[in-house]
């Protein structure tokens, strides 16, 4: 099937089989390998991307469902500078080890920070509880998101 969509600000036209999911489409057709595939059944959150402003599990969405949509991946968010402060906080706090969950984690964290100005730690933990990280134990991630929220709100870190 022919689909037409916007990916990270670029117009993309492609022929895809109906069964191809959005994660595989991004990774294999567009070579946007920053979107990771961890469980392929919507639990781990590694494949989280933004579709029309909402975060979705790209392994649970078909590429054809993204026809006409605007999709943003970690590559797009990185290049636009939208999350550079969040990435800096992750770096300073060592909020990633192997880094495989990180693109999805950043997506989910940015989604929360856009929804709520100063989420408390419990709220951050809740919002990220669909993103599995085996390395960090989460605390450093919570710290980094919390400090970014405070900095964005104009508070001292």
């Amino acid at each position, binding site marked *: 099937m022919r689909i037409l969509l916007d990916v990270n600000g670029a117009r993309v036209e492609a022929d895809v089989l109906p069964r191809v999911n959005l994660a595989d489409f991004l990774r294999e057709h567009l070579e946007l390998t920053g979107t990771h595939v*961890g469980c392929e059944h919507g639990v781990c959150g590694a494949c989280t991307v933004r579709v029309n402003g909402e975060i979705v599990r790209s392994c649970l969405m078909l590429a054809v469902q993204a026809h006409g949509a605007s999709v943003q991946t970690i590559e797009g968010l990185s290049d636009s500078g939208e999350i550079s402060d969040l990435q800096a906080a992750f770096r300073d706090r060592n909020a990633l080890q192997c880094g495989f969950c990180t693109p999805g984690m950043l997506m989910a964290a940015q989604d929360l920070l856009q929804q709520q100005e100063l989420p408390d730690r419990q709220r951050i933990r809740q919002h990220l509880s669909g993103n599995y990280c085996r390395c960090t134990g*989460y605390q450093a991630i919570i710290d980094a998101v919390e400090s970014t929220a405070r900095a964005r709100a104009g508070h001292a870190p």
Partner: protein
Amino acid sequence: MTAASTNLGTLSVLDRPNSYIGKVVPRPNLDRLMQGRGLYVSDIELPRMAHVVFLRSPHAHARIMAIDATAARRMAGVIAIVAGAELATVITPWVGVLSHLKGLKSAPQHAIAIDRACWQGEAVAAIVATSRAVAEDAAELVSVDYEELPVVTDMRTALDPQTPVIHPSLGDNLAFERNLDAGAVDAAFAGSDEVVEAEFIFGRHTGVTLEPRAVVADWNAAEARLTIYQGTQAPHMVQNIAALHLGLEESAVRVVCKDVGGSFGIKVHIYADEMATYALSKLLRRPVKFVADRFESFNTDIHARDHRCWGRIGVKRDGTIMAFEIDDLTGIGPYSMYPRTSAIEANQVVNLVGGPYATKNYRARARVVFQNKNVMCQYRAVGHPIACSVTEGLVDLAAAKIGIDPVEIRRRNLIADDAYPCASPSGLRFELLSHHAALNKLVDMMDYDALRSDQAALRKKGIHRGIGIASFIEVTNPSAAFYGVGGARISSQDGVAVRLDATGSVICQTSITEQGQGSESLTAQIVGSVMGVSMERVRVILGDTDNTPYGGGTWASRGAGIGGEAALQAAKILRRNVLDVAAAILQSSPAELDVVDNAIVNASDGLLRIELRELARIVYFRPDTLPPGIQPELMATRHFVPRQYPFAFTNGVQASWLEVDTDTGFVKLLRHWVVEDCGTIINPQLVDEQIRGGVVQGLGAALFEQCIYDERGQLTNANMADYLVPMSGEMPDIDVGHVVSRTSETELGAKGAGEAGTAGAAAAVANAVNDALRPFGAVMTEIPLTPRLILAALRRI
């Protein structure tokens, strides 16, 4: 500090000006990973690359009568369908034994099963196609005629005479047994005022690395060379094994390891499907990619733990621990894993039980049995969580029996901090540990007495909170005693090569590997500090057998302690060589010069003499201007392996504070504390995050994680919806403190920290749950501590 005091001859390299040792500095590789610009094996695409999907046995034990792939072979895009016998013409089978584990036996294992599948998930055929989707479609058209065989699933009956023997040639289902009897155990129990016993049960769980195992094998027939791209912790081990079983020279195999999406011991082994992928590439003369899906991960990534360990402890009324005794039983699946074997965990349990305590009376038996379940092998903190949970569970039971506070009984029995060096009853040699200092620090950090008051006050309101303490010892920096002496070609030494490049930057090649621990960072920190070069000017290369010195890799908490020391020693030589050249250029002497902030300075007054960049320019491009007879050597290599102590033991203690809902059986983790002692701390942040990540893996084992098999050997929860892992919502904040007892075996003084968190977390949680439920008379010695288990113990269900 003045420049005059910075001469390396008189001052430790750890204390140089602008040293990065002991500092929090960001890891150099993070931006790549955060921007989605890493290169994991699953990202790799090569020209002519084919994809392999394995057809796996749906039965735990079955004879393979016939495989019919006729229809599948007709599908467009299918390249080959290969069964075990055909693949065995390319790759030889293996047997996972080590000679120092006396009596350990196993049967030959093939890359793809021949005639018989021994666990649900063992590959019976490989389907190679132009895409994974095509290969998966084709796999559905392959029909296999199985004859189901009797299964051995329960480890408790695996040795019974009426139980079928999985490998008849071995005679029985016993893979390994070890017995130990130290001190005067019977007399010690006889002289005890109280003897308490319990059976501790540990669920089978697995690593659940977020990136599944993945391999791209690229046999270049024209070069007669195999390049393996694999997320592995031990590239040289993979090189050796692949070459051995494909009949190649090691030099004909290159292993490249780029970014790795989590390892934790899961990726330190050689799996049959990985061997099959190497062999398929050679057979088909093209690159072949294998990426496990999550279902395959659960069914084929090594599982761990699955022990039933009976234990007893004898105590005097004054709290003195008189003796420990254990009888451990574990089931490892149908084969001992290769090449590290599946006997190591039970062996570690025997080694480690009672390890923190002074008593010399200890008896142990461990038996390792075969069963028709997925293979079991070394996963983070091998054996430690079992040993710690048994030891610390028994100590708490003894304390409750004689009415002593859990902290107090530990104070009375932990090996004294001034008793070192000393040895454990099982023969472990301790250079320097700090149990009491660690416990004291922990008690301060958690404000133990205040927590006890809170606990008592909340009890009156019907809120049941508990405190659990767990002391532990940890095996780090393993020497050849771990694998080498048993005949495994797994290097225990590591090498580092450093060179000054033509612009005055340092290139550093190390044999340790990076899976997120911070190997790259700690290497750059050490080399930068010793060289007097800023970290941004140190580039670290790792994970490539063609381009690094030979070495073990990163596992068993060895990267910092062994690879770090090699880096330190190599950098010292390069620094000396640089000063020799500088002295020649500047008509000075090396003793009068130093390297600080990327430049040669006067040792006496810190005056800038020549930038490293300029020195390098002269050496590489204008050597004609150097004095006669000078041949600069701006590259240096050093290797290191521990020789004095087989292992650098570390120690620590953890505490858990939690609340048990006695109506629902749910456990809410409120806070967790760890004090550990890994010797010299190279980067406090990296150490703390190793500890935290390790703790959470232990918390997963304590509360959630379990591979649930039915009686037919079917894994019933092989997905992430049914196999529960710790997520951020349930995890507590974890406070980490340190005591520093350096190892004097190295100049760096670093020991490992990778296992500490996982070693004691489950024991602390189990002790806390029991503490919370003590008024109810409920005692639980099984993990995971599910709500069902807790409600059953409370007799609510």
